[in-house]
């Protein structure tokens, strides 16, 4: 097994620069978004926030930083599969946005995220030309199927279902090339997404045939598992999950969901489960784990900063933000 000696040592050196719990508190305590950006100036984000004119462009700074992190990992491992596991979702996000925008004839340029494996401009061009042949194979197939699916039943949600299926099957294939831990990581992510889908669909009372469309294959729990429990009481689903590897998700998220159907705590429990899995990377000296763990930490950090900035700009009280905060990697 490849040990990635250079890359793992570099990752260990970068880990100390991750945003800590302490710093998170200071970011929260800052009275305004501008002040939050000032607190960040002493971190790795400093130079990126220096480049953006207004704090309202915080996403630009966060994504630029993330892009540089991806480049560091690609260069130091010599294997682009690590970052692909995290970048494909942006390709699919962009494709989703552009396809749906073309259907409703509006522009959603500002929610495109420029850190996927394919440049946004290229995806934009293929969508406007309706010719996907220039895209990498998996995106091409995904786009073709999504377009065909939309033309058949004119439901934009189907576009999401189809594209997500392609995304996770591609992520899983990529992860398998990196070995057991990467595979476990993506399979777990698939399960967590399915659990979330299952609970949300039950809450809004969607049919089980639609659930089947939305579920993603490839996780440890087969889609048939969710379909089977769809008509049963939630308690029996929780019981069945509590004897699986997801017992913590049940304790921290689903039990509470059964009582108040509060998505905040549920999503937090689901995210924390994956972060916890990634944390194995902190205790390993070499190999795939520390690198994947670090990438997850960065992914999570980007989420954390977005949450804090959006909340600060919208003047949401600190306690409300704190409720939504995920665990940090360090």
């Amino acid at each position, binding site marked *: 097994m490849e040990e990635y*000696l*250079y890359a*793992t*040592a570099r*990752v*260990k*050196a*970068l*880990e100390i620069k991750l945003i800590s719990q302490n710093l998170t508190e200071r970011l929260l305590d800052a009275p305004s978004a501008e002040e939050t950006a000032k607190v960040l100036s002493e971190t790795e984000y400093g130079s990126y926030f220096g480049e953006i004119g207004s704090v309202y462009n915080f996403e630009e700074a966060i994504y630029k930083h993330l892009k540089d992190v991806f480049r560091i990992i690609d260069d130091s491992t010599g294997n682009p599969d690590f970052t692909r596991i995290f970048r494909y979702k942006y390709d699919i996000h962009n494709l989703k946005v552009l396809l749906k925008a073309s259907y409703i004839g509006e522009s959603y340029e500002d929610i495109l995220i420029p850190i996927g494996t394919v440049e946004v401009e290229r995806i934009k061009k293929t969508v406007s030309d309706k010719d996907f042949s220039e895209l990498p194979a998996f995106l091409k197939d995904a786009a073709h199927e999504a377009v065909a699916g939309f033309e058949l039943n004119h439901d934009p949600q189907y576009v999401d279902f189809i594209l997500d299926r392609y995304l996770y099957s591609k992520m899983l294939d990529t992860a398998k090339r990196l070995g057991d831990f990467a595979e476990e990581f993506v399979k777990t992510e698939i399960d967590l997404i399915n659990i979330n889908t299952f609970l949300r669909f039950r809450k809004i009372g969607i049919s089980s045939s639609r659930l089947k469309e939305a579920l993603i294959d490839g996780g440890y729990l087969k889609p048939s598992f969710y379909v089977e429990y769809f008509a049963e009481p939630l308690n029996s689903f929780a019981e069945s999950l509590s004897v699986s590897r997801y017992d913590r998700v049940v304790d921290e998220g689903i039990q509470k969901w059964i009582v108040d159907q509060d998505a905040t705590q549920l999503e937090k429990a689901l995210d924390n489960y994956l972060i916890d899995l990634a944390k194995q990377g902190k205790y390993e000296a*070499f190999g795939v784990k520390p690198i994947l763990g670090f990438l997850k930490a960065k992914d999570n950090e980007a989420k954390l900063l977005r949450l804090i900035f959006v909340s600060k700009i919208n003047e949401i009280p600190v306690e409300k933000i704190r409720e939504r905060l995920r665990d940090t990697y360090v």
Partner: protein
Amino acid sequence: MEITLGQFIALLGAALAVLLPGIGSAKGVGIAGESAAGVVTEDPNKFGQTLLLQAMPGTQGIYGLLTGFVIMQKIGLIGGNFLPLTTYQGLLVFSSALPIALVGLYSGIAQGKTAAAGMGIVAKRPEELAKGITYAAIVETYAVLALLASILMLFGIKF
């Protein structure tokens, strides 16, 4: 001078005593060095600390060279008076080279990995460098024991 099989075998022992721990050390410092470069890319100030750890797996090569010298001395190669060893005498010398040859090879690589793992300590908590060095030094014990065994055997052989 007629060359005996014993001389050949003894010299082969000397060659292996230098060769195998040399390979072990080269791999060991290579592993540790790769890791050190990763740390220094992010923090060039840690060059000194990482160098210290990187050098640790280098000792096996020195122990091997030392054993090789003692053998060459013993069989008269260095003095210019190569002893006409019998086959069994040659085998005795060869056997005494084995401990440091094999232990040197494997402990060098193992120590390299431990030192590389220690680089993680330097990256995160440079003040705890001594602990990383201690872990690597424990691997050293076995290289030292093997050197001791090889040298004692060599001194014990009387021609």
